């Protein structure tokens, strides 16, 4: 039996976008166990509900994370609207759907770039982010900000998109689709990429179900759960099927995300043809009283919102359970039995968003 040693991984590591610490127990270069330790970016955002009233908390909710910021704001607004029993105009729901699919697009392209960087393919990383710049330009033109959009409010959205901007956006997306296809050919077919991803970090279907894996991490192992099927916002008018793969290794998780990019482009095109004319917000009076659970689909998986109000303008409790929090046990299972050099790639395949994990 070989000697065991403990190697600390993180919180500072070139491959990690955000700080997380793992203690890796090694036996001759194979990882036997991994012990996680989080809490480096904890800001206590759930306690801030007591100091900011429920309208202003939208701004705080958007700033929980930089990459998935729009869907956090949207989830919070949907939560408050359900507690107060408001029915927002249909056009606002379509606009929210379009922006959240853009959010998903830019997050997946960002992740593809980080994955390429993790196994050392820097020029592929630069190409992915160059494509992402075009999406950020569209977002800046329509919302005013590249990363934090600031368009959600309780009762609707704050900005409108004109019809010819929407048509122009669809044309830009169509041009981008051929470029994305060329980029993804490298991820799917390249020999060196396959060597790093195929057969590495296998998560079986039973383990994924038992450990509660969500999002592309779970769907890469065969779990068919996509919260967009719940039909919130405008998703019950749009036509799509959840994408899943059966193999459960890192390559399958990569393929799921690549296919979701194409699915997002087609969802945006569908939404643009179906969007109705009308108002974009409604007047909100009164205070929230009651409790509700809300579940949305972020680029990384299923996000949970729980809110409780007692009739005053400060909420009693807001709870956000982000998908990376649910994927950490699955990460610990994937890491058992892999080589030490595969650890950065495996940590990245679950798409860690640590600032979401510890608000």
């Amino acid at each position, binding site marked *: 039996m070989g000697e065991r040693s403990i190697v600390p991984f993180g919180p500072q590591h070139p491959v990690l976008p955000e700080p997380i610490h793992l203690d890796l127990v090694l036996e001759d270069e194979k990882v036997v166990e991994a012990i996680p330790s989080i809490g480096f970016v904890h800001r206590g955002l759930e306690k801030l509900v007591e100091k*900011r009233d429920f309208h*202003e908390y939208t*701004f*705080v909710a958007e700033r929980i994370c930089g990459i998935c910021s729009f869907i956090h704001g949207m989830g919070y607004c949907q939560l408050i609207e359900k507690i107060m029993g408001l029915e927002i105009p249909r056009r606002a729901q379509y606009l929210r759907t379009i922006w959240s699919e853009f959010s998903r697009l830019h997050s997946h392209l960002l992740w593809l770039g980080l994955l390429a960087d993790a196994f050392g393919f820097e020029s592929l990383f630069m190409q992915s982010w160059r494509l992402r710049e075009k999406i950020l*330009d569209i977002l*800046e*033109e*329509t*919302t*005013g*900000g590249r990363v*934090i959009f*600031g368009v959600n409010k309780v009762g609707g959205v*704050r*900005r409108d998109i004109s019809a010819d901007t929407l048509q122009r956006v669809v044309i830009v997306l169509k041009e981008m689709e051929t470029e994305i296809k060329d980029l993804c050919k490298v991820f799917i077919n390249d020999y060196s990429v396959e060597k790093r991803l195929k057969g590495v970090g296998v998560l079986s279907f039973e383990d994924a179900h038992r450990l509660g894996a969500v999002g592309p991490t779970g769907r890469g192992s065969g779990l068919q759960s996509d919260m967009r099927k719940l039909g919130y916002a405008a998703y019950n008018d749009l036509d799509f099927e959840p994408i899943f793969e059966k193999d459960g290794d890192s390559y399958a998780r990569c393929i799921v995300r690549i296919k979701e990019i194409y699915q997002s482009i087609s969802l945006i095109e569908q939404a643009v043809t179906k969007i109705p004319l009308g108002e974009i917000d409604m007047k909100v009076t009164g205070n929230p009283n009651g409790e509700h659970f809300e579940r949305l689909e972020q680029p990384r998986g299923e996000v949970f919102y729980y809110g409780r109000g007692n009739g005053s303008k400060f909420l009693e409790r807001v709870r956000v359970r982000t998908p990376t929090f649910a994927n950490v046990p699955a990460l610990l299972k994937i890491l058992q039995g892999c080589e030490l050099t595969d650890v950065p790639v495996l940590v990245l395949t679950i798409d860690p968003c640590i600032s979401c994990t510890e608000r």
Partner: protein
Amino acid sequence: MQKVNPPMLKIILKNLFQKAPTRMYPIEKREPFAATRGHVDNDIDQCIYCGICQKKCPAGAIAVDRAEKSWVIDPLRCVACNYCVEVCPKKCLSMEKNYITPMTCTWRK
């Protein structure tokens, strides 16, 4: 002597004579879009010093004094969320599209 590979020659010539894909910043600056949220500006003649913007600002970046007729904003605290522009009753606040130049902490009128 080694012969230069024909495809490589094409790439070398292309790189030598093609225009650079990057911008010559700061000689040539990028024009932000019309809707970009850069910084907040106040038309001070129209302002009635009601203080609604101070109450609604989520970051606490505006300080208004009705008695002394002063309106100051801390540009480093402001997150450019556009909330003050929306609630101003006289519509004297506006969101300009250029980002502020780097500065040390100072309150600005």
